[in-house]
């Protein structure tokens, strides 16, 4: 009888080990996904690099973009990455309310970033500089817009996580999800730094 209990205990331990294995697979898989996303963005950057002078008689990056505006966007996104990190730290010490609050701050910062981006888009469109205008603007809207789309997905993801945290407690799945999310969010940050440098900074000085 006791040996039976022992076997059950051993098997449960094995199952826990299997679950860890599972987490490490998920993490590795997610890294691979991020890498493919990196290739995706690299292709978009290449497209932008090829087309950024093809204004077809329209205004160039130098005339269209405002560096301080983009810098504000950058700072907001960087801060959101920081608060996201705080949420992960709170989750590791199982402080549910803190996780929820830091995630909510991140969420609000993300929303502000996105609305700034959309404001810029509508400003451009209103001044007859929409994506129809030239190859350059097509590639600008697509590159920045794809990043924005990723941010939107991140916001949706955060929303679902916050909602679930309200209802449940912090378990293994939550921590795993939060880890993956923070990877994703930091990744978007890095991509944005590239966008900021290549589109706004180099564009601003007219390279």
């Amino acid at each position, binding site marked *: 009888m006791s040996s039976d209990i022992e076997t059950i205990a051993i*098997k449960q331990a*094995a*199952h826990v080990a*299997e679950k860890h*294995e599972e987490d*490490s*697979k*998920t993490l*590795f*898989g997610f890294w*691979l*996904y991020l*890498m*493919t*996303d990196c*290739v*995706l963005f690299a*292709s*978009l950057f*290449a*497209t932008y690099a*090829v*087309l950024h002078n*093809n*204004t*077809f008689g329209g205004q160039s990056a130098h005339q269209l973009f405002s560096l301080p505006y983009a810098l504000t966007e950058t700072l907001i996104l960087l801060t959101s990455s920081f608060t996201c990190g705080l949420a992960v730290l709170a989750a590791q010490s199982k402080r549910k309310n803190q996780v929820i609050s830091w995630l909510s701050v991140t969420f609000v910062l993300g929303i502000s970033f996105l609305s700034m981006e959309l404001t810029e888009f509508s400003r451009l469109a209103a001044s007859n500089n929409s*994506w*129809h*205008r*030239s*190859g*350059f603007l*097509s*590639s600008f*809207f*697509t590159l920045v817009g794809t990043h924005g789309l990723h941010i939107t997905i991140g916001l*949706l993801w955060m929303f*679902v996580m916050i909602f*679930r945290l309200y209802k449940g407690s912090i378990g293994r799945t939550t921590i795993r*999800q939060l880890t993956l999310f923070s990877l994703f969010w930091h990744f978007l940050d890095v991509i944005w730094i590239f966008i900021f440098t290549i589109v706004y900074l180099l564009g601003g000085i007219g390279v």
Partner: protein
Amino acid sequence: MMNNLANILGKLNVHALPSSPITAGAVIGGSIAVLAVIALITYKKRWTWLYKEWITTTNHKKIGVMYIIVAVLMLLRGASDAGMMRLQQATSVGSAHGLLSPNMFQQVVSAHGTIMIFFAGMGLMFGLINLVLPLMIGARDVAFPFMNSTSFWLFAFGAVLINLSLGIGEFSAAGWLAYPPLSELKYSPGVGVDYWIWSLQIAGIGSLLSGINFIVTILKMRAPGMTLMKMPMFAWSVLGAMTLVAFAFPILTVTLTLLALDRTLGMHFFSAGYGGNAMMYINLIWAWGHPEVYILILPAFGIFSEIVSTFSSKRLFGYKSMVWAIWAIVFLSYGVWLHHFFTMGAGANVNAVFGIATMLIAVPTGVKIFNWLFTMYRGRIRFTSPMIWFMGFVFLFTMGGVAGVLMAVPPIDFQLHNSLFLVAHFHTMIVSGVLFGYFAGITYWFPKTFGFRLNEKLGKYAAYCWIVGFILAFLPLYILGIMGATRRMDHYSASLGWQPLFIVAGIGASIIFIGLGLQILQVIVSIWKRNETKDLSGDPWSARTLEWSTTSPPPEYNFALLPVVNQRDAYWASKHSKTKTENDSYSPIYSPKNTSSGFFIGLFSLTIGFSIIWHIWWLLIIGFLGLVLTIILRTTSGEHEKVITVSQIEKIEIPLNGGTKA
């Protein structure tokens, strides 16, 4: 009223229905076939079985079978396109203009290439990988079974979408890679190119997910003791191919998206004028397209490695060389895409560098062929039908390789580019390399999957027909190419003297069709007489790798006890060693539950694709919300695993082990 209706259905209206008798016939025939299948399932009351056992399955073996079924259907569709092309080119000469209008012919050409690469080739590849890879490395499933089912359904619904174009609207007439500006809205105003974009986009995302899935499976789930250098060569080749998938398919996703943005939102990435750059598209599509060729062919190389070694009853020669050759090919395949357009005028330096990089690929490929030959050397070769495919492959592939080396020299390419010589070259590579490899693989692993072997005699006849038919069909195309015949012609003038060669090519194609027919017959006969070829041992070919160590067909969990590996060809070694390994006791196995989420993700993706093609915006919103909700529900729902208890395992295993408890 009519106006409102028109708005509701976007660009879709009654004119979208087929107008030519050939398409109408195909659509009616296809619909009747689909209805017949539905009727049969209803009559046999198999809907729940279909849903529970197949549609919602997350088991890699069943997913593999479904991939192969879809791929074979698509192969037949692609082959019938090929038949029409051969017929048109053999008859449309001088004052005769053949059965197909130029636009129809170009749709057929585009559909043939697209279907064969994306749905026949990729489908057979993922099917075979799903069937055997986990078994071969001693794993119980892939790393992410749900994602695997999603990949399959994206692939399947991509295939559905491309076939919808036959009945509703039209298909792209811009060639299989849809070069702009021809594929831009201005020059292709119909929905054809949109069908092309979205069926590839949906299937392509499925492939990308599969790529990630199999990389993780191979790197994280090998049986205890199986270090990388002890993996079967097929696993290595899949790892190489999936690495290519992970790096190449995002480029395809981007390229298709940009073209879709041009066509749907009026952007100007590839427009003629407006600051667009069509050459960029050609660069991007080949940055994906060239690795894609190696994605298809590496697993076929892996299959040949397994087959040659098994049927020569000998260890694979030059294992390390083979591994290095795979990675050399993976690496080089990213540095050669420009050889697809030397004629763009990039300048001598650029052309020469890409030409030399291209020729370099011949070296590792040649090494592989020599290693296979020396695997056979001093072996005991059994000429089963997989070996016949292999022999055909060696002869044809080498010939095609020489043609490839020729065209890698830019000045020679200026003469042969876009000619039928080029067409003949890549068909030699893809048919003999990829298709023969997959046919051999299907024959080889069929008994593992279904528990009985395929009829050998019919299999051999089919292989002979394919080889002879191929030579007759494509040698004339090589010659036509050097006579100055370009690809994708729907008509030519009689004075050029090309017709006899096209007729010979048509005869060759007919022989290939006989081969295809024999293969269908082979499957039917084999099922009919399955008791004669039953595989009771689990190892019908006296093979070497782990998949043969379990039963045929394998249980749901593949291995009751995970095999422990300490050398290459682990199963061969265990068969030949005198010491029997100590049997461990069974533990419960955690196995993924079935889920319908993958199916619905595919279905909603189809909805999204279809609604963008036809500009039906309300349907797009439905599709999109459906997709997002399915993903959220899946990721937030509870436990996705079920437990197979020890007593359930014993119930399955004890009769197999001859009544003794493990």
